[in-house]
């Protein structure tokens, strides 16, 4: 076994050069940012770091399309996914990402584990750490659960969705999907339609999209928009979302859009008194083929899934020519490979074992 210092990503992967039109020379990729141990949200990512992740994802995507989808990069590393909420795509995506990179991936769900016996998050996490988990990937119904782990554990923590707060890996794969179609994000009009108030996807995308220079429009009935976005409190110096537009009329929001992102609408919102009916929501805010005509012809239609087809998005749109929803899923694996690589790569002065 050879000990190699600061190996460029391609030789680590033992692969060919990835071919993506917009991809710059990988030798310039800042693939190992100093000190990034956790991925909690995108608020602490610089645009350069986001670009770096996307460029690494290009390389990972090439691995993903090989016949033999396996590289030894993370051999001997343990990734534990700790999911306190139901999930298909995010959990499987992390598992696949880890396995392609040869990490040992162990999945723990709230159901069927000691969580059911009433074990606290703190004790569960300490137990997993005691088993020498290198990374804990956590999804939790409460905002801030990943920060709580990051504060109390030595392991790397990746946020796979916490409450209403953040879903940074989803936002990165969304950015990556936009970037790979349009070559850039800067200046694009991105419209996010739906349950903004409760959406961790929207919150992380707000950070990511604004950092990358997109013009973001949030569209929903006022009851599903955070109250402080509805008043003048954003008009203070230095507010990161000062340029974000709020639009309660979906037709006006969609005019000239480059990207439309529909969010899942939960039935609970009706019960909580935030909506009269899902039917009315669908009629007022659903993304239909007719409404999509208001957007640019080359518009990208996105959805983080799982979809309520016929409510927030018409099936014709969801599976239509402008939809990149399935591509988002594929890109999710590549992005998560890139992120696992990022947090597990040694800091400067360390070394990385190669086969």
């Amino acid at each position: 076994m050879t000990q190699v210092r600061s190996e460029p990503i391609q030789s680590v992967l033992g692969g060919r050069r990835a071919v993506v039109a917009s991809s710059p020379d990988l030798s310039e990729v800042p693939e190992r940012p100093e000190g990034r141990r956790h991925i909690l949200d995108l608020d602490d990512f610089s645009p350069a770091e986001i670009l770096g992740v996307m460029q690494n994802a290009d390389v990972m995507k090439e691995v993903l399309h090989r016949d033999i989808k396996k590289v030894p990069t993370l051999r001997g590393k343990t990734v534990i996914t700790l999911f306190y909420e139901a999930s298909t795509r995010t959990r499987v995506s992390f598992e696949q990402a880890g396995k392609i990179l040869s990490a040992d991936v162990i999945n723990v769900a709230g159901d069927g584990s000691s969580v059911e016996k009433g074990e606290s998050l703190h004790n569960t996490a300490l137990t997993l750490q005691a088993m020498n988990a290198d990374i804990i990937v956590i999804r939790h119904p409460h905002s801030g659960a990943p920060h709580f782990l990051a504060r109390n554990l030595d392991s790397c923590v990746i946020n796979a969705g916490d409450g209403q707060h953040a879903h940074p890996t989803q936002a990165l794969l969304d950015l990556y999907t936009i970037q790979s179609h349009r070559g850039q994000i800067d200046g694009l009009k991105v419209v996010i339609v739906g349950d903004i108030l409760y959406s961790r996807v929207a919150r992380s995308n707000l950070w990511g999209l604004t950092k990358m220079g997109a013009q973001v429009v949030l569209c929903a009935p006022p009851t599903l928009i955070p109250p402080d976005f509805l008043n003048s409190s954003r008009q203070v110096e230095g507010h990161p979302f000062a340029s974000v537009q709020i639009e309660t009329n979906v037709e006006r929001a969609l005019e000239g859009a480059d990207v439309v992102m529909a969010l899942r609408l939960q039935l609970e919102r009706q019960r909580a008194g935030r909506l009269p009916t899902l039917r009315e929501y669908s009629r007022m805010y659903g993304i239909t083929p007719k409404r999509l005509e208001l957007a640019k012809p080359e518009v990208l239609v996105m959805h983080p899934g799982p979809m309520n087809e016929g409510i927030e998005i018409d099936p014709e749109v969801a599976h239509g020519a402008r939809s990149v929803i399935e591509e988002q899923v594929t890109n999710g694996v590549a992005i998560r490979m890139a992120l696992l690589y990022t947090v597990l790569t040694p800091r400067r002065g360390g070394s990385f074992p190669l086969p």
Partner: protein
Amino acid sequence: MKPLLIRGGRVVDPAQGIDKIADLLLQDGLVRGIHQRIDPPDDAEVIDASGSTVCPGFVDLHCHLREPGYEDKETIATGTRAAARGGFTTVCAMPNTNPVVDSPALVEFVLRKASDEGSVRVLSIGCVTKGSNGEELAEMGELAQAGVVGFSDDGNPVVDSNIMRQALSYSSAQGLPVINHCEVPELFQGGSMHEGWISNRLGIQGIPASAEEIMVSRDIALAELTGGRLHVAHISTAGTLELVRQAKDKGLAVTCEVTPHHLTLSDATVMGVRDGGSPFDPLTSSAYDTHAKVSPPLRGLADVAALVQGLRDGVIDLIATDHAPHNRVDKLCTIDEAAFGISVLETALGSVMSLVHSGEIALPWLIDRMTAAPARFLGRSDLGTLREGAAADVTIFDPDAEWTVDADGFASRGKNTPLDGMTLKGRVVATIFGGEVVFSASP
């Protein structure tokens, strides 16, 4: 008990309008006098207080001692020891224990336990409703005879408007106040912090200011209707302050209190932002500080500024701690799961002294709001003053001493404070209760 001579301190007794360098003599558990120079009686113990402030022992109208029922969070013994360390010589214990203090037997238990094991004086507050469940009035008459100093279902608001009306009316026969924790459940439930930018970015369900203001407004209307005595607990918003101001202008029997944390901390504390940080900065792993989760929530900066103004101009009657100790596990979790409350007694003075150091509040006025004002509220002429013949309850503190908060070193079982590790300026040097030194800082 030996006489005690406290020599050469800055004696501040707002009740008498005294603020001068002087000696203070305590004898037989009572204040004997304040003079420029007192020769110590032969057997007297002498405390050199030069450079320190000498004032009446602080009176806390609102704290949670947790006993009986929640001895893992606090006991009367540990809570009163914490009080002594914080300069408090009288604390009023809220009745939301288990069982709740809704009968004379429970009042007796608290008071006897306090006299057996307590370091300072404990007064008991009784429930407004039986079981504190908001449905039927507790036996307020008998509770008053047993010695309670007010009624409160604190922890919960009195939600039912008719019950609140009857409580204000019935208690007027005892001349005692109803102390209400004002928050309407429909706007409060599920929330963990102030609603605003920070709750939005943290993805935490917010509690709007109107949750408090709606109930304060209702209670003031009911106080007017009944002529009862209303005391609004721990006010947190600028809007509440205005409502109380209007009620006072009308001449209603409405008073209110504010906590040290609502005067000095904002909702940015939940985000882990300290001095110099911006609410727009990236979150760090110190975000989601469960120790900053408190009810009512820490509000925005404009509210904090308004409360300081309200304290200065006298709309706020007094400072109360709302000391709410919890055990470690109650806070070692996510914000949504965490208990509400801060352990305050041992940091109260250091917190509010920041308002003196910044020039916002004059020292004698601050002391008034922690001594004479709450004593007046309780109708106790023997407390909160250094008048001759008053109880020999004295706090000596160094207004300029800087110290670092070490929650693990608290006497309170509740180590739950967002101030852990922070430096405060203003420290209790000694606390004297009934003429005896119950706390003395190691030099």
